[in-house]
């Protein structure tokens, strides 16, 4: 494989996607938009994990695919998080008739 992709290209992509996700978390007020931004951040971490697995060394105590296993776990966790998040957002929407985080006002702070 001549002129393979360097490792840090993947890492820079992941870093950029992570930063974009953080921008979303910081700027969006709608809870679902925040949830989308969180998903972007989790995906960025997954790209890191898989790239490190493919390019990095393997160590015997962690098995042949630790990065992949963690990526699969992240996938699972993300699915569960979205289900829970949508449930909570629907509950809040019914209580407050709004899906924007800053319109919830019963708790001071």
């Amino acid at each position: 494989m001549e002129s393979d992709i360097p490792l840090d290209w993947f890492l820079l992509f992941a870093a950029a996607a992570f930063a974009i996700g953080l921008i979303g978390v910081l700027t969006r007020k709608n809870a679902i938009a925040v949830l989308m931004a969180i998903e972007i951040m989790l995906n960025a971490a997954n790209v890191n994990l898989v790239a490190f697995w493919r390019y990095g060394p393997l160590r015997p105590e962690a098995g042949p695919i630790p990065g992949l296993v963690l990526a699969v776990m992240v996938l699972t966790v993300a699915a569960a998080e979205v289900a829970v998040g949508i449930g909570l957002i629907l509950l809040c929407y019914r209580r407050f008739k709004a899906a924007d985080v800053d319109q919830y006002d019963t708790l001071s702070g």
Partner: protein
Amino acid sequence: MPSTPPISFDPRDVFFITPQVVLAVWGLVVLLADLALARRLAETARRQVVGKLALVGVGLALAAALAVMLVPLFARAFPEDASAWFRRRTLDYLFENDPTIFLGTIAGDLETGTFNLVFVLLLGLVTWLSLAWKFTEEWGEYLALLFWATVGMMFLSAAEEFITLFVALETMTICLYLATSLEKARRRSAEGGLKYFVYGSVSSALFLFGLSYLYGITGTTQFNAIHGLLAGAGESGLAGNPAGMMAILLILAGFGFKIAAVPFHQWAPDVYEGAPAPVAAWVATGSKIASFVAFMKVFANALLPWASPGGNILGPGWIGVLALIAAVTMTYGNFAALAQRNLKRMLAYSSIAHSGYILVGVAALGLSTDGARAAGAVLFYLVVYSFANVGAFAAAAWLMRDRENDNIDDLSGLAREQPLLAVCILFLMLSLIGIPPLAGFFGKLYVFMEALNQPSGSPHAVTLIWLVALGLFNSVVSAFYYVRVLRAMFLRDATGRRLAPADTPVGLSILAATAVVIVFGPFSDSLMSVMQAAAAPMLTVPATVPPLDAPRPRPGKVVRKPVPRFEYSKEEMERMRSMANGGAGPPGGVRPAAKSAGPSAKAKNAPASKTENAPASKANNAPASKGALGDSTRTPGQN
């Protein structure tokens, strides 16, 4: 054809996770029983039936946790008896010198045994407290989520490896998000749940990104292996390695959210106020204990070589950051608590402040030459703080039940109506302040002593002295807001509705918490020795890490040798358990026999010939973890 060498875990390892299995299964049982049978009953009867069923599950889990903790100790203490009781295979297993189970992913040692017990006891109190009044429609789901959150906590405090740790962390927090918002008739519950969810998910993403960098740097996810790789890496270590600093900061941010350390604390007041009181108690105690145990495992075991590589507080390393966070956290938490009028919100800020004190202990642990003692101090503080806090939240639940309100002023006149419980709450508050004969005082004392007990000439000693001074100042500040609670109870006349007498759920939680706080004041050294014993295997590096590419000498490698400093027997464990249970049980007469100096220096002869120090011997001569053995056919670093 792929020729993966067959690896599999030892099926006998399942014995060590019976408490978790029992709780997970019992959660389903409660859920199904509620769905199938109890929904036909009237509200109160349903709550009682499902709640009693849940308490049966807690009892089963308690039995399982005791068995898991005591059977290996028993076998090691009385080998002759054990050989009559167990088969050869089982006996061999119990004497194995490997504290990790399931191929090195989780620990099955005294630490997990002790903390499983603590979690189950706290869960029992929280479950019982939940039965006090009607706050949700979904009893089956609510109790199941409490149980499953506990399973997450148990695995979180047992994890020896980052993948398991991450999944356990998520299991715990997702169950808690949901439980927080199950008081569906109140808007603040839904709002608290959503805020908890948003902050928690962002923190998980930060944690995960830092974790991915750590994996990239080391190529492994196991704590011990990471420790071995980082130790003595010298030039290629943290100094001049900004990626490592990024990883540390991101992981710190992730844990900072879970333990509510400033500047990651914003969720805590809203969640504590919004959640139903038992859930708030569980967030404040169970999840905090589990997060701190995992935090210590990650930072004081895996990342210990990066604590302060340059020996300079301003240099790279996590000690400086941690000291700063600890200082800000305790100061902010205490001063913000001064302004609160809602009891649960005040407890939230005070819990932030307590996180700050505990972080002082963790910083001391990062520098300490005697890890087990410093970590034992932190664990002691955690346990005592947790029981006191459950009691305080029980008071909030009581207010909520009878006055539908949980402001501090609503406690007015409690001393005249309910003198006994008012005195109990007095003791809880005094313990949280840290007044001498109570257990909270000894928690602070041990933590601060460990912080001061640095080797002379250590460059960090001055920093830690300043931290301790700040902590003492903060303790004085904290007295003001705790005393406001007492003033309302004892000096004011009742306003509004009278509180109905506390029934079993509320009264039992307050009484049990008070008993713990009082008993472990004078007997703090026995709890401390148990906690030190629990901390020893948590911090050791039992597995010899296989050499990487070329076996090079590692000049600065620090392998913590567990010092057999405390020995205790089965009778003592019984005694500890009976005390933790509130005093009932066979009184054992054996004092803790501490060999060396320390807070528990009362040397009396334990049956030393028979008593084997389980954790130390487990960790001392462990050749390699099972995982490393099972895979030794592979050459490291090869593809």
